């Protein structure tokens, strides 16, 4: 079974597969037993049977199904295991498990833990004690023996450490434990990297009485680590190493990040065939290189792939040099006092023990300081001057402060950035016109450009630079009158900087301002240490606290509790007490890196042991016993087979009636559920807005329908409907208009715009329409509709009682108060309403005498015109004559209500009034224009 990661616990059972053809043959021969039925009318059936093919054998798919079933059962009985793992014989009376949890184990730590867990599980199965030791932990750790449960817990709690292994110490502990457990199995789970003292460690281990040794190592070491980095003047060089065993060409990408972790540069590092070391170069500008805080390799997640750089943020050593330190009684007058106070927190200050410059300067230079500050040193002895210049040109930063001595000294081309005029310049003295000068804005190109100039600093004395062509470039700070305050000049790799005033507060108050601290700090930041100092040169023995540690997976993390402060300068090995990382504080750190420059990654050699060594590799326990799934599949097939047999036997179709019922029930259920999901939307839609459906709209406009308002009082509504019906009939008889059914409208809900006229009988007993309904009526009237209000109270108001108001009129007034009612007037004689179809003097209904009020016409009445002109149709008509009452007819076409007085002619006139109103509604001013046709024709000369 090489082609499949499959093994069998009982491979002999597989011989049963040979029986499959026999089973196949049997299955083919023995069809499923049919239902046996006695059937007298067989001869009739036989006539059909000639057409029907009778299956004498099982269907092929059923045979296949059963064969598969048999095969599955056989396979399952053979106890197959997918992705089998090696069984490691944990013999003897215990298991000693030594696991390397160094940084090299971090990338595949899970697999190592899984491997170890498997071993512990095997030990648990045999109920033997387990010694568990982690080689990157402290030698003081508890190695056991534990029982398997505890060992498993400890294993799961373990994690890789960003430090190399400490095999000798740990193996010593294990050897002690093994001495009490003779005949135990030893499992060495190595990280694959050789370390010092390995050989002795193994030998100490193998001295114990062992039953067997299991050697588990990574198949091939592929970790690539960074061993060195150098910030060269032109480029940044990174050196990477890889295990020596690896010979193929390989390329990785290294990248540099700044303090915030931003990736700012990268380079490719190519290992040639057989090369264990390779370098990459990042050619980026110096300013960018100064921001590098760490270099890392892409895709490598272990501590070795991250290298911290402290060049940029490392504490600088600054040498201080002065010539008049004698008077310690007046420290505030000491030239270096303010400099010490300003730089103390940021830099290591180095001061010579001797005031003699010939001794002091070599002392300082031995310390390879980043910068040397000389406070008012005039002339240097020739012997030391050369060394100082040499140091400066090699990259040192020389910071000089002016003072009486410098002012008196001669110009020194090398050690001064600019030529100075001899003597100092005094500003604002008693004999001077000038004022002490404040500091001007810092020039944009200089290092102080982002500082704001101090407002309260004045300079009263200074040394003056001779004007030259490049004086502006060299100036880092100016006074307000333009004279330089700080000048600087590049000297090869180094730099000389001159403050044109004193470092103490005699010439100016700059040294006691905060800006002075900032300026010095910037300058020191620009400088770089000139080499490392030897261990014994640490004057104070200061220890740096852990600041940021590298985790085993190659990320920066807060320091762990085990981390102890680091003594800078000493070559401290990387241990758990001193894990790799940054030591120091925000102001300056020292990088403590895992690999020293020149380190190599040597593969560990398998030691020779007195007992046989089994080799294995790390792997997850991905073995899966397949017996259960196979059996389940066989069971499923069995169920399928049963179903198929039932189907072949016809049981399913005999039950099909029931099945159909069930299907129906399911469908109904599904429909109910569906409806349940959908109905809320539908209900919302109905509640939301009473939009007329398309059907209603089509019905409403397919014929001209006269609408009436449903008041809610049934007697009124009945009369309204009958009245509109009567009018419709009359219209159909007399005119070309054949109105549709009367349309009852609910003004609060129904769409009104379909109807040209809405008849509104006012009834005091009806509920008052809501504000919204009145607003809708108002909109309807504004959009061209007409409402015919009928108060039907012509005789109810009492005769001549003009002051009294009937309830209907009062209600009408209430309604109209919410409407935009135009000015009204009774229909004038020459109004088009009086001539729209019939010529009518008035508009009676059941009653006679109430005027019909319409919108007041704006045009003047003219005697020579039969009708006054005017555009539009009145939006409102008001009458009290109960028009609908007069129009109302019953089912036979007979009048429903008597007119008052009972005069048939009045009913006829009422109907004619209705005709005129409808005609007026539908034709508008066309009728009023039509009466002018003779005049128009006459004007046209025809």
């Amino acid at each position: 079974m090489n082609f499949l990661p499959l093994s069998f616990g009982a491979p002999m059972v597989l011989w049963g597969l040979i029986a499959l053809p026999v089973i196949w043959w049997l299955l083919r021969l023995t069809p499923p037993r049919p239902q046996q039925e006695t059937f007298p009318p067989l001869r009739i059936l036989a006539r059909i049977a000639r057409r029907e093919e009778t299956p004498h054998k099982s269907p092929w798919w059923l045979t296949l199904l059963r064969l598969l079933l048999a095969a599955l059962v056989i396979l399952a009985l053979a106890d197959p295991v997918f992705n089998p793992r090696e069984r490691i014989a944990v013999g003897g009376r215990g298991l000693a498990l030594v696991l390397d949890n160094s940084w090299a184990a971090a990338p595949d730590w899970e697999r190592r833990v899984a491997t170890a867990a498997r071993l512990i599980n095997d030990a648990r199965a045999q109920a033997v004690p387990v010694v568990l030791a982690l080689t990157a932990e402290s030698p003081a750790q508890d190695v056991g023996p534990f029982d398997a449960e505890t060992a498993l817990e400890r294993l799961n709690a373990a994690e890789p450490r960003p430090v190399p292994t400490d095999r000798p110490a740990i193996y010593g502990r294990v050897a002690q434990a093994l001495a009490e457990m003779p005949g135990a199995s030893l499992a060495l789970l190595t990280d694959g990297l050789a370390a010092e003292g390995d050989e002795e460690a193994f030998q100490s281990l193998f001295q114990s009485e062992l039953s067997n040794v299991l050697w588990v190592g990574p198949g091939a070491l592929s970790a690539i680590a960074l061993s060195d980095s150098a910030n060269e003047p032109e480029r940044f060089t990174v050196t990477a190493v890889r295990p020596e065993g690896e010979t193929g060409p390989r390329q990785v990408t290294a990248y540099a990040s700044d303090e915030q972790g931003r990736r700012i540069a990268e380079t490719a590092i190519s290992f040639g065939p057989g090369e264990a070391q390779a370098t990459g170069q990042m050619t980026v500008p110096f300013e960018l290189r100064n921001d590098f805080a760490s270099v890392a390799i892409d895709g490598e997640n272990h501590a070795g792939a991250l290298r911290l750089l402290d060049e940029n943020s490392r504490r600088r050593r600054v040498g201080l040099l002065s010539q008049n330190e004698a008077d310690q009684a007046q420290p505030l007058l000491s030239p270096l006092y303010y400099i010490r106070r300003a730089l103390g927190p940021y830099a290591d200050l180095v001061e010579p023990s001797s005031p003699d410059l010939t001794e002091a300067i070599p002392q300082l230079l031995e310390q390879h300081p980043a910068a040397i500050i000389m406070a008012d040193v005039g002339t240097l002895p020739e012997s030391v001057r050369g060394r100082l210049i040499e140091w400066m040109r090699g990259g040192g930063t020389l910071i000089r402060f002016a003072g009486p001595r410098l002012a008196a000294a001669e110009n020194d081309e090398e050690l001064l950035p600019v030529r100075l005029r001899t003597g100092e310049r005094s500003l604002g003295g008693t004999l001077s016109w000038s004022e002490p000068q404040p500091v001007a804005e810092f020039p944009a190109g200089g290092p102080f450009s982002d500082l704001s100039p101090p407002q309260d600093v004045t300079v009263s004395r200074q040394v003056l630079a001779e004007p030259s062509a490049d004086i502006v470039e060299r100036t880092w700070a100016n006074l307000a009158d333009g004279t330089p305050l700080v000048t600087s000049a590049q000297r090869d790799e180094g730099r000389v900087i001159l403050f044109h005033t004193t470092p103490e507060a005699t010439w100016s108050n700059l040294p006691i301002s905060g800006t002075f601290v900032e300026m010095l700090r910037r300058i020191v930041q620009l400088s770089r240490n000139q080499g490392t100092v030897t261990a014994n040169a640490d004057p104070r023995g200061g220890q740096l606290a852990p600041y940021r540690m590298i985790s085993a997976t190659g990320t920066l993390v807060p320091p762990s509790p085990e981390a102890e402060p680091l003594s800078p300068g000493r070559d401290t090995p990387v241990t758990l007490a001193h894990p790799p990382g940054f030591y120091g504080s925000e102001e300056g750190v020292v990088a403590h890196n895992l690999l020293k420059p020149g380190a190599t990654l040597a593969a560990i050699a398998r030691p020779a042991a007195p007992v046989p060594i089994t080799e294995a590799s790390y792997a997850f326990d991905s073995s899966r016993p397949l017996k259960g799934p196979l059996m389940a599949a066989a069971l499923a097939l069995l169920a399928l087979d049963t179903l198929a047999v039932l189907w072949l036997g016809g049981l399913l179709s005999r039950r099909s009636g029931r099945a159909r019922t069930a299907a129906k029930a399911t469908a109904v259920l599904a429909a109910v559920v569906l409806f349940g999901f959908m109905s809320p939307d539908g209900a919302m839609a109905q509640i939301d807005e009473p939009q007329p459906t398309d059907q209603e709209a089509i019905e409403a406009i397919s014929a001209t329908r006269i609408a009436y308002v449903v008041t809610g009082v049934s007697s009124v509504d009945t009369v309204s409907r009958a009245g509109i019906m009567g009018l419709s009939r009359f219209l159909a008889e007399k005119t070309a208009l054949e109105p549709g059914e009367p349309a009852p409208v609910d003004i609060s809900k129904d769409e009104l715009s379909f109807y040209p006229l809405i008849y509104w009988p006012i009834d005091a007993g009806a509920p008052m329409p809501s504000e919204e309904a009145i607003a809708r009526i108002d909109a309807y009237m504004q959009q061209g509709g007409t409402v015919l209000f009928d108060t039907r109270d012509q005789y109810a108001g009492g005769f001549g009682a003009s002051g009294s108001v009937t309830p209907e009129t009062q209600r009408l007034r209430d309604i109209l108060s919410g409407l935009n009612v135009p000015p009204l007037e009774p229909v004038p004689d020459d109004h088009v309403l009086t001539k729209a179809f019939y010529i009518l003097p008035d508009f009676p209904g059941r009653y006679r005498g109430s005027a019909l009020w319409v919108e007041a016409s704006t045009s003047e009445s003219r005697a020579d015109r039969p009708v006054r002109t005017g555009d539009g149709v009145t939006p409102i008509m008001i009458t009290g004559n109960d028009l609908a009452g007069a129009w109302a007819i019953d089912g036979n076409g007979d009048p429903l209500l008597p007119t008052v007085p009972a005069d048939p002619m009045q009913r006829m006139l009422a109907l004619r009034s209705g005709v005129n109103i409808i005609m007026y509604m539908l034709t508008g001013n066309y009728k009023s224009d039509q009466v002018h046709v003779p005049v128009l024709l006459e004007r046209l000369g025809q």
Partner: protein
Amino acid sequence: MARIGEVTAPVTTQDALVRARTRASLVPDLLVQARRIVGNVIAGWHGRRRRGIGENFWQFRPYVEGEAVARIDWRRSARDEHIYIRDREWEAAHTVWLWADRSPSMLYRSTLSDVSKESRALVLILALAELLSRSGERIAWPGLTDPFAARNGAERLAQHVAHAEPSATHPDLAQVRRFSDVVVASDFLDPPEETMRWLDPLARVGARAHLVEVADPAEESFPYAGRTEFRDPETGEKLTFGRAETLGEDYRQLYLARRETLTGWCKKRGWSYTVNHTDKLASDALIRVHTAMTVEMDGGR
């Protein structure tokens, strides 16, 4: 899955003694059942009344020229101006041949019914025997008895049947004479041509036949489904079908077509054809057959 049909009593390989006992014990039951059914039939039937040659008064009817003067009932005629003839009730004995198919196929009984076809056929025949005996008809079983008239005709017929050897062969109808009625209760599952062939002599001698088809509901509705092996109880022939439910439609068509053929054939000869399902009441068929007989007797004379 339970079978739908079964053979009630094994026929071909049955020991003779056991068979006789079974038969003997079966027949009295049938007789009792037949009596009960006859009682039901008589309760709903108003007797067989018609004029004819007999002893009892039937009716007076007006004398028609040409009739025998001797038949005039003068006593009655003296009572008014008309001359009457006294009719007497018909009392001529009639021969009815009764035969029930006792072939193995008749032993079939499905779960849909309570009785086998043979049982139902025998019940029907014995019930008719009882009915006809009571009304004085002569009954006979072709090949088994000569026509006889007896009050206990059904018992005697049953006795004869019990001792007879059931055979699949068709009865010998040579003895049947004209004006006889023949009642044949069978399942008529043979091809119609065959049935017509052995019944054809009856038509030729002028006898009237009443065919009673005793059908099991399972034979008609064909409720089988799935893989089924059908066995013919007579020939032992077997047929296996993969999916029996697919045959149902065709089978029912053929089955009913056979019945239609026979019905039409009978109608053409003035015979009756009655279908009795074993899950229905036997008295239904009894009434129908009896009515058919009566009507024919009336219509015939």
